[in-house]
């Protein structure tokens, strides 16, 4: 008998793999990570190393203990670690906090829900919310860049009447904030890279940012300032586009992004919290199954009901 493989079609596959997609996200975040080291010196580097390595380690240990197939090689835990680091304030305390955050993100939010593709909430966003709630004093102190540790208020928390940073400073990230949420320029560049690589599509970031700009204008705020300050860029380009916790259809993505924009603008206007991106993400994450259910594509050849 000839040894021939019998299998189901198709017999050829596209080159894209999960790990390649994750690698692209890592590449896209690199300029931002490097810029954060420039702005906040070695503290930033240590936070990134602590966050990424503990995310990988927690996933490895979880798989080891629960005797699951090792999933670390898909690099999604590296992405989570990197995004989590970008969400941390540039303080020495963040090195320890990022390890706690990594535990929340990887073990509680991701692996306990079944691992990649199964979690309901964005791991990095959930970890940030957890840390802000549990260690609020350490998570809301920000350092001005290139100052060797002078604390300052973030652009969104500056009291009325005081001098606001210029658009250019916001664009280049020369404002206080967490590691990766200050520099719009590198975040946007990474986002364009991801779109060229077809890792993400324009719908979520553009509609999210657009909705916030529109609503803050309606609320009498400066729209350009609103989208450049705070976690808008990081949240909309890298966190809201997380495959697992966002809808799968185009229509769903549009609804989701508009919802995010509405939440963020409202939290910023009416809430006591000056930020709002991470909270909006968690809230909209919870609605994704519902959005998916109502945005199922129209099947080819379906006869319209009259």
């Amino acid at each position: 008998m000839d040894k021939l493989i019998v299998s189901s079609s198709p017999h050829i596959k596209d080159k894209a793999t999960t790990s390649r997609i994750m690698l692209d996200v890592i590449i896209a975040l690199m300029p931002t990570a490097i810029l954060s080291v420039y702005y906040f010196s070695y503290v930033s580097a240590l936070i990134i190393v602590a966050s990424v390595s503990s995310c990988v380690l927690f996933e490895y240990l979880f798989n080891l203990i629960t005797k699951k197939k090792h999933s670390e090689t898909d690099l999604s835990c590296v992405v989570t670690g990197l995004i989590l680091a970008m969400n941390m304030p540039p303080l020495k305390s963040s090195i320890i906090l990022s390890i706690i955050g990594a535990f929340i993100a990887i073990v509680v939010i991701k692996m306990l829900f079944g691992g990649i593709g199964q979690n309901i909430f964005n791991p990095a966003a959930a970890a940030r919310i957890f840390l802000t709630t549990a260690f609020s004093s350490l998570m809301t102190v920000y350092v001005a860049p290139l100052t060797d540790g002078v604390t300052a208020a973030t652009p969104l928390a500056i009291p009325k009447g005081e001098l606001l940073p210029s658009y250019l400073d916001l664009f280049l990230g020369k404002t206080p904030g967490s590691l990766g949420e200050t520099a719009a320029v590198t975040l946007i560049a990474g986002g364009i890279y991801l779109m060229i690589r077809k890792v993400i599509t324009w719908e979520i970031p553009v509609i999210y940012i657009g909705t916030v700009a529109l609503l803050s204008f309606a609320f009498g705020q400066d729209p350009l300032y609103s989208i450049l300050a705070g976690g808008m860029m990081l949240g909309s380009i890298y966190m809201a586009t997380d495959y697992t916790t966002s809808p799968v259809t185009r229509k769903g993505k549009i609804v989701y992004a508009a919802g995010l924009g509405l939440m963020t603008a409202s939290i910023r206007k009416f809430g006591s919290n000056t930020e709002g991106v991470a909270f909006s993400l968690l809230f909209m994450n919870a609605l994704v199954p519902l959005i998916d259910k109502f945005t199922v594509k129209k099947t080819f050849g379906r006869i319209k009901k009259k």
Partner: protein
Amino acid sequence: MIIKIKNIKGVTLPHRKGTSEIPTETLPIPKLVEIPMQQHIGAPCKVLVGKGDYVYVGQVLGDTEKFVSAPIHSSISGTVVQIKDMILHSGVKCESIVIEPDGKQEVLPGITQPDISTKEKFLKAVRNSGLTGLGGAGFPAHVKLDTKERIPEALIVNAVECEPYITCDYRAIIEEGNEIVNGVKLILDKLSIPKAYIAVEDNKPAAFSLLKELAKDDCRIETVMLKTKYPQGAEKMLIYALTGKEVPMNGLPIDIGTVVMNVTSVLALYKYCKTGMPLVSKRITVEGNGVKNRGNYQVVIGTYIKDIFEYCNGDKEKTVKVLCGGPMMGTTAESYEMPVVKQSNAFLFMTPEDLDFMEESACIRCGRCVEACPMGLMPLTMNRYALAKMTEELEKYNIMNCIECGSCSYVCPAKRHLVQSFRVGKDLVRKAKVKNG
């Protein structure tokens, strides 16, 4: 019917059409042929010859009274040595007739041009020709062309050939373009169809210009160039790409006034109407790194894969998979003892370097499958329900509308076996329907 070119969803594939410029070669008559009694969708044929009988080329070997079926003819002259049971590469069980050729290729005495003076006689001739849809589905042609009182607004001739590797339709156009165009004219005349569109993808410009040139004196025939996209050769996709109209779910092309025929079906039908010789041989593409002499070959139906493989200098050590058809929708042969049937269009002898073996991993919900699906389905959701055997949900997500084109599996970065699970899922839905009446 007006042309309204639309872009279909789907995927962009590597072409790998390396055999397109090699002229077709005729394979010598093999030592033995095996002709299965089920080479079409519908009722299997009953064996009409006995062991030891002498048969001629073109002689009916099997037929049935059933309407949805097509007679099967002998492709060689020789002696019936065995009638046995077999399993086709599609998994269908049927009887088959093994014939030892005498090498003379003696044609059945009295074979002559059929009488096609009226529509009824023409349709009868189509049935007698044994023609089935040669694009791959194998639906009996006389059933498709018999549109009863409804006259189609347009005949669509499918020369898309969207699967990688396969070039036999292209070679047919280049080598027998005149017969094809005459065949189109004949069908338009006999069935009083006002218009024909011949669809070619833009990766075959030579075929396009040739057909356009050959059909220029008949204003009923229009050759249309489409942007290359897989699976544009699928019937419903092609109609949509040309007309912007969707064939209704569970409906037929005639529901929106069209009839689609593969370009080689048109050719086979024309040849039968001119000579009376039914479909007894096929042009097939032989490709893959497992064989040295790649190209297109004219082979008699019933030829074993092993004979083609040997003739083309195949290497059994290197070949790990034999595909009957293209790499996207083709089935795998279990052994080299499988015969050529009417729908065979390619045999690809694949080595590991031709194939992509990748382990399945968890779905990351990237949505690429949803974007790729030409039928507007939700492959990731269907996959979940199919694995959980949730029949009702599968039906709700229109799993029966899946054409198994493989676009979703192709683009999946997690390499999930989506189509495979849908075949299982469709089977569940069918069984549930039977159970519930």
